[in-house]
């Protein structure tokens, strides 16, 4: 057991969750107090000592499922006859006489093959309608058997199996069927009772609630299928090999440029608390900074409570001026999501700057500061940028040279020695003129010029990237691929 725990802790560390030695010891201590046969209890109590942040919990859960997965003959991939799994299913299903019977029939007819697609679909529908947990599990197991097409020994993470299973089940259609069924039931009921017209169906509120209800059941099914696939993979290849292939980065370590849609959602969610924390931290830093000169008046005032003896001297706190920020962001396809996150973050902490102005460009450039004014929620403003900003000049391919030149002509005057200028982009200029003289001019007027590049450092100056040319005139070019890097940069800036 201790070996298993050590391996597990190693996996957590590899996944980016910091686990200290004393936390490891606590976890080992935990195992002495919690009954080992209670898997859920182990999961939560181990988590209590190993995971110290709620954003790390999903990663922990995945690792836990792999290392402490249920093993047994029922979960092996090569199942010509799923007697182990089936037997269990039957026991659980028999609580519901009608459904249990159907299940039995399905197996009897199909034998080793499992059941026909129609029967499986029917069973799925029934399971979702009745919110019967054990039945949902059984369906998940069957579906993976039938559609997953899992092959032993392949070094994959299982996403493909999941996709294949879900595509065959066609959950959207099931959802519609469930809703239709509910509609019919209501109208039938009303017709029977006769105190309303037969055309009365669900009210929108009821329909909405039902939809959410079924949605949560379908989500549950999806989870069941996922863990079923994972269990089989573990049985096939062992914990350690699998953990490596399905390890997911923590939200703050996701590469923004290559994030999948799900990852982007996770990113967006973690952005709000991140910017809030950053704002709090910066405000504190500002207030609790250095001590200033003695505040004589305040000292005398406070000495009154100690009989005129100035026991505690009071100081004036310096109020350092806040920097002005100008953000110039490339929002062409390749770096759009990165630009959005940066704009979001900068505006979310705009109280820490005396002024924030934002410009976006592709080959034309436009000011978008007004979108953020008077809006509580930067998300909305960022959305408006995508739809309303006038950033296309000729063909909608990045042209840094033209965009910078226009910027200099129209707004160059407004850069003062108190301004920090942030340039965002991968500097992939499609072989247009660079316009780097503008950056040089900006540098001579502004306090600082920083370039944030969302590409890995190794790709800089390859192909049509000319970041090196701009770098000559920047104070610093920063690689900013993840939220963590972005947060660190903005934190230092303010």
């Amino acid at each position, binding site marked *: 057991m201790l070996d298993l725990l050590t391996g597990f802790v190693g996996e957590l560390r590899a996944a980016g969750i*910091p686990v*200290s030695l*004393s*936390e490891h010891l*606590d976890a080992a*201590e*935990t195992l002495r*107090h*919690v*009954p080992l046969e*209670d898997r*859920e*209890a182990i999961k*939560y*109590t181990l*988590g*209590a*000592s190993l*995971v*110290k*942040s*709620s954003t790390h*919990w999903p990663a922990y859960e995945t690792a836990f499922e792999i290392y402490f997965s249920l093993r047994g003959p029922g979960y092996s991939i090569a199942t010509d006859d799923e007697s182990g799994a089936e037997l269990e299913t039957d026991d659980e299903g028999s609580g519901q006489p009608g459904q249990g019977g159907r299940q039995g029939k399905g197996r009897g007819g199909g034998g080793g093959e499992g059941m026909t697609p129609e029967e499986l679909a029917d069973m799925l529908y029934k399971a979702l309608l009745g919110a019967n947990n054990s039945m949902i599990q059984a369906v998940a197991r069957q579906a993976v058997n039938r559609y997953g097409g899992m092959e032993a020994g392949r070094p994959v993470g299982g996403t493909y199996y999941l996709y294949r299973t879900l595509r065959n089940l066609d959950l959207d259609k099931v959802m519609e069927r469930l809703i239709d069924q509910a509609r019919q039931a209501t109208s039938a009921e009303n017709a029977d009772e006769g105190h309303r017209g037969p055309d009365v169906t669900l*009210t*929108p*509120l009821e*329909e*909405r*609630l039902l939809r*959410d*209800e079924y949605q*949560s059941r379908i989500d549950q099914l999806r989870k069941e299928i996922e863990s079923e696939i994972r269990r089989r993979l573990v049985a096939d290849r062992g914990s350690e090999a699998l953990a490596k292939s399905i390890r997911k980065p923590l939200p703050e370590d996701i590469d923004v440029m290559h994030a999948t849609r799900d990852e982007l959602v996770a990113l967006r969610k973690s952005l709000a*608390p991140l910017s*809030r*924390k950053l704002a*709090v*931290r910066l405000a*504190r830093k500002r207030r*609790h900074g250095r001590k200033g000169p003695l505040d004589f008046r305040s000292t005398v005032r406070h000495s009154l409570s*100690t*009989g005129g003896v100035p026991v505690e001297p009071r100081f004036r706190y310096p109020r350092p001026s806040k920097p002005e920020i100008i953000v110039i962001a490339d929002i062409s396809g390749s770096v759009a999501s990165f630009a959005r996150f940066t704009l979001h973050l900068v505006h979310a902490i705009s109280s820490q700057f005396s002024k924030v102005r934002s410009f976006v460009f592709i080959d034309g450039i436009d000011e978008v500061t007004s979108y953020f004014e008077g809006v*509580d*929620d930067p998300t909305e403003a960022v959305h408006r940028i995508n739809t309303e900003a006038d950033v296309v000049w000729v063909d909608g391919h990045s042209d840094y040279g033209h965009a910078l030149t226009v910027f200099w002509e129209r707004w160059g005057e407004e850069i003062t020695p108190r301004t920090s200028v942030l340039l965002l982009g991968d500097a992939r200029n499609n072989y247009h003129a660079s316009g780097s003289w503008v950056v040089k001019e900006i540098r001579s007027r502004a306090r600082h010029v920083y370039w944030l590049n969302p590409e890995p450092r190794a790709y800089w100056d390859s192909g049509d990237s000319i970041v090196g040319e701009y770098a000559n005139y920047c104070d610093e070019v920063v690689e900013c691929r993840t939220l963590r890097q972005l947060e660190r940069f903005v934190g230092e800036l303010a």
Partner: protein
Amino acid sequence: MSSDQTDTTPGPGAARTDEITSGFPEAGAPRFESIDAVRTGLAGVDYLADDGISGVVYLADRLAKPVLVEGPAGTGKTELAKSVARLTGSRLIRLQCYEGLDESKALYEWNYKKQLLRIQADSGQSWQQLEEDIFSEEFLLTRPLLEAIKSTEPVVLLIDEVDRVELETEALLLEILSEYQVSIPELGTVRASQIPLVFLTSNNTRELSEALKRRCLYLHIDYPGLERERAIIETRVPGISQALADQVARIVRSIRSLDLKKAPSVSETLDWARTLVVLGVESIDAEQAKDTLHILLKYRSDIDRASKELAGLDTTG
């Protein structure tokens, strides 16, 4: 049990040395039998715990470690500490954290004014005597943390909203959290005679320091699932019908799935359920839901959004 101990204490002077030197912190008799005992016990005081909560509370008792509870506002973090205190029959000592909290408010403070009076009242004494006298326990004002340590009866210590104190102030807590002792330079070290159950709550407005996290068990309380929320409504709102409780729980779940500024918390849900009971509502329709949404949601834009999602279809359909 506790009254016995206080009765046998002869007087303040003698008690002082006793309390300070005696009582090495030992893990006392476990408070809970098993994880299930925690759960049923908490249910007995109207707090419905899930697997995670009861598991961690059980472990906190067995390992004698503090629990750091995080989660969205209004999901019952503070309530958990109160319920555990009620369950174990302990005294609840609460330290509300705020920005600027310091040693003198959290741990102890010398009563300067009384010391000054003492010096002025009797100037004939030698300095040595006087010094010993004014730095005695008589002139010590105990604050919540020291109070919890010195108490001879069982105690639950709640350190509320620990994320509001500065990073440096957190260090104050470290000694008490890991060793259950407080060092006072003039007096020596005060050790706990019993290990208090400690709960720290945080709303996650900033990252707590690694040192603090390392010493604690971590518990994240999220919004409850449908079943648990329904059960909570039923236990906490007297006179609510099962059908209504079910409906409330389902509507709240739908609202939480929307993209809102502030999702309705459990306490707001309970307020809403109570309102509906007072209004004599048997089953909620869209109109009533819209009229009472302001109890559930506290932002104008959220209310508009939710009523559009829940009931707005009325106009089109």
